[in-house]
């Protein structure tokens, strides 16, 4: 019995790891001429622009996320309660959606610059929108909530006693923030910024709108342009190394710093009441960020949607929208189901005996989330093409059996999003202690009763939450879908991206709005989970 479980666990981990291992193994057979060619053409630009973008977005989200988190943690002002969770809402807006709305608004032909020219003449100066700066601004607005959420949680854990002690030795409130609260929150801040940076590495659509050439964008360029799988693979290997390096950097930055606060029931930091214009400025700051990152773009999307339904700018056949919606629901639903089941299986298998290698296997299997979508995409494609060739021979390579199929796409989603579902599944399974099962058995419950009476009710909510997160992630997903979707299987995200890439802003608003609406669900889930965590003892 034990062998079956062990084999199953190793098999699952191997299947999930295989695409990434394939990309990593490519290191051993790097092609020198290919590299020289890359180095002489695009690679230096790609590396430079990737670095600049990563640094800008990392710094931007760090400043914005930490600042806002400190504002709502350390001060009290009217509207703080609502604003402190509304500030998470921009997570619901995919970067490529905010990107194209921003572009449509601020680009040369957009309303802002047109108005400026009407007032100040054709020479009116405006910063170049299609630039690293523009892309960094958009990405910062979309992803600062990662840092904000983690920083807020870190500040909430800090006890007022520690801060009081700092004040007692003569630090001002600002000094206490800089010298105490920030260093204490460092592990959380590092984790947040790492998430942001990994997202930045994955994104290719937004940066493409803004004419920025990053590694991910480069992979797509060579992929789409000349179907050059080799070069794409080389770049994917490089990107994988960068992501791995970042994860190692995060570990070392976090270091041994696992600060714990003395005592179980800590006294929370007492927020200071702000008055009159200070309160107005604090609220205004939060509202400004909210308006830029969510309010205004959402309003714009609604306006476009209304206009497009009244008078279409793009002739689309009736029912096309429904087909996109159907494909999206089916794909996201299927991926959520598959991923959740595998996650549950891993969570159960991983704790059967609790050996070290089992934990390592599970850990490796769930590392795909840190890998940029383009890496996962290239890895899965290459793996499936190899399997196809092995199974069906070369003559079939024109009609790839696995590569262009739903199987391939679902497989890639599994690799990419397993970690999301696993987090929830593991936490749920953890709730059912061995003692509980033993108590049930001693009370006369057989296997069936234990499964339905003890496991299912305790695990259900967590699994559902995990499935919803995966569902929304798949719905928003772009790089993997773009690379692996079978012919005709376009999702809402692909539809949005394609229309926006052709500057059909108004038409793109309809699928974009749908994505944002569905995307609000996990954000609410996230906020509720956070609140529950704070209420529970």
């Amino acid at each position: 019995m034990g062998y079956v479980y062990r084999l199953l666990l190793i098999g699952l981990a191997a299947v999930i790891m295989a695409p990434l291992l394939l990309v990593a193994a490519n290191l051993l057979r790097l092609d020198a001429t290919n590299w020289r060619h890359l180095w002489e053409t695009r690679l230096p630009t790609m590396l430079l622009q990737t670095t600049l973008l990563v640094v800008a977005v990392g710094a931007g989200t760090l400043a914005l996320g930490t600042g806002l988190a400190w504002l709502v943690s350390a001060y009290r002002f009217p509207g703080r309660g609502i604003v402190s969770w509304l500030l998470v809402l921009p997570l619901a807006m995919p970067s490529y959606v905010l990107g194209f709305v921003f572009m449509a608004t601020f680009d040369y032909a957009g309303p802002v610059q047109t108005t400026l020219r009407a007032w100040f003449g054709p020479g009116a100066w405006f910063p170049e929108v299609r630039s690293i700066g523009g892309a960094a601004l958009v990405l910062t607005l979309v992803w600062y909530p990662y840092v904000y959420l983690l920083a807020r949680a870190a500040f909430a854990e800090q006890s007022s006693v520690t801060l009081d002690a700092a004040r007692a030795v003569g630090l001002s409130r600002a000094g206490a923030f800089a010298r105490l609260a920030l260093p204490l929150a460092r592990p959380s801040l590092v984790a947040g910024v790492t998430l942001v940076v990994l997202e930045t590495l994955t994104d290719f659509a937004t940066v493409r709108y803004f004419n920025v050439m990053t590694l991910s964008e480069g992979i797509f360029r060579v992929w789409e342009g000349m179907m050059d799988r080799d070069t794409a693979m080389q770049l994917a290997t490089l990107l994988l190394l960068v992501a791995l390096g970042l994860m190692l950097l995060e570990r070392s930055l976090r270091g041994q710093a696992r600060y714990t606060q003395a005592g179980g029931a800590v006294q929370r930091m007492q927020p200071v009441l702000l008055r009159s214009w200070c309160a107005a400025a604090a609220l205004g700051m939060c509202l400004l960020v909210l308006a830029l990152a969510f309010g205004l773009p959402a309003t714009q999307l609604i306006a476009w949607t209304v206009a497009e339904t009244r008078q279409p700018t793009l002739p689309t056949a009736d029912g096309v929208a429904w087909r996109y919606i159907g494909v999206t629901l089916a794909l996201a639903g299927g991926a959520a189901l598959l991923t959740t089941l595998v996650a549950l299986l891993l969570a159960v298998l991983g704790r059967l005996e609790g050996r070290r290698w089992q934990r390592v296997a599970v850990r490796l299997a769930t590392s795909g989330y840190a890998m940029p979508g383009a890496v996962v995409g290239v890895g899965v494609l290459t793996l499936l093409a190899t399997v196809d060739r092995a199974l069906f021979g070369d003559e079939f390579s024109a009609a790839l059996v696995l590569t262009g199929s739903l199987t391939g796409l679902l497989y890639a989603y599994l690799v990419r999003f397993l970690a999301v579902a696993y987090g929830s599944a593991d936490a749920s399974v953890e709730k059912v202690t061995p003692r509980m099962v033993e108590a049930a058995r001693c009370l006369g419950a057989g296997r069936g009763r234990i499964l339905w009476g003890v496991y299912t009710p305790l695990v259900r909510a967590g699994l559902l939450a995990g499935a919803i997160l995966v569902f929304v992630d798949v719905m928003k997903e772009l790089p993997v879908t773009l690379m692996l979707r079978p012919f005709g299987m376009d999702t809402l995200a692909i539809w949005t991206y394609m229309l926006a890439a052709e500057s059909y802003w108004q038409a793109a608003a309809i699928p974009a709005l749908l994505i944002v609406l569905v995307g609000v669900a996990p954000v609410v889930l996230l906020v509720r989970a956070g609140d529950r965590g704070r209420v529970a003892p």
Partner: protein
Amino acid sequence: MTLAISLNNVWKTYPGGPRAVAGVTLEVAAGSVLALLGPSGCGKTTLLRLIAGLERPDQGVIQVGERTVASEGVWVAPEQRRVGLVFQEGALFPHLTVAENIGFALNGRPRGAREQRLAALLALVGLEGLGSRYPHQLSGGQQQRVALARALAPEPAVVLLDEPFASLDPALRGELREEVMQILRAAATTTVLVTHDQEEALSLADQIALMLDGRVVQHASPFVIYDRPATRAVADFIGAANWLPGHAEDGCARCALGIVALAAPVQGPVDVLVRPEQLCMAPDPAGAWRVQEIRFFGHDTLVTLVGDTGLLLRARRLGQAHVSAGTSVQLQVCGAVSAFPREQEP
């Protein structure tokens, strides 16, 4: 005497782990309370889990009532053993209310009977009116009472308690264990209580089985365990002990305290066990013992005495000792003492 539990030469070794239970033979009379006492890691919890059916013995026969539940070729699953089990942490089902937790094992019964039994159990453990609460809304003591009610619900032949009071704070512990024992005696079930707390075992149990290194080294009443320990190890584990080298002959032993009466005859070189409360002291300028240190605990006092050979003894008195450090005293032994043949020096 009807037996509720009997174990015959039971062995259990965990794969890759130490030998947990090594040849235990034990009988528990129906309706009695047995304390399985021993230091942590002595195998007492494993023994409990063997009785409950949560572990399979490598060898040996286990009977619950008349029925053989484990032996070579026989295996009865825990859900069919009618054995109630209460864990240290309660292990209540967090998604069920107090009433649903207690009613978990009453599923098959008709509604009326079920409600009646539930009400009776809630009253028994003093939790009337709390049936609709969830476990996390209860205190630790209340949770343990729910766990007990849940275990008692299907009217098990035997109730096993695995250190049920260990995770409670001391103030609550004493009160709750009195109460739990009353409930269990009222329900007239056979109880096995696993504990490492000798006070708990001595005060609550009819019989104590003392376990060391996977074996039951002595199985007797609390009085016998305390006054007539079977081995030096038992004497050391239970209560405080003064050891005096001596020589035994004809029911008496000669040692640093003079000639003392032995409870059981031994011959030859021995170590005499004198409990601190058996030492009576009287101030005497010519006495051979000097008071070195006095520790006052309120209800009693512990006095450390030093003899002219440098031998240290501890004496315990109720209330104050009425001596001061440096005083010379006479010592007398009250009652018979135990002696163990001297272990040969290697």
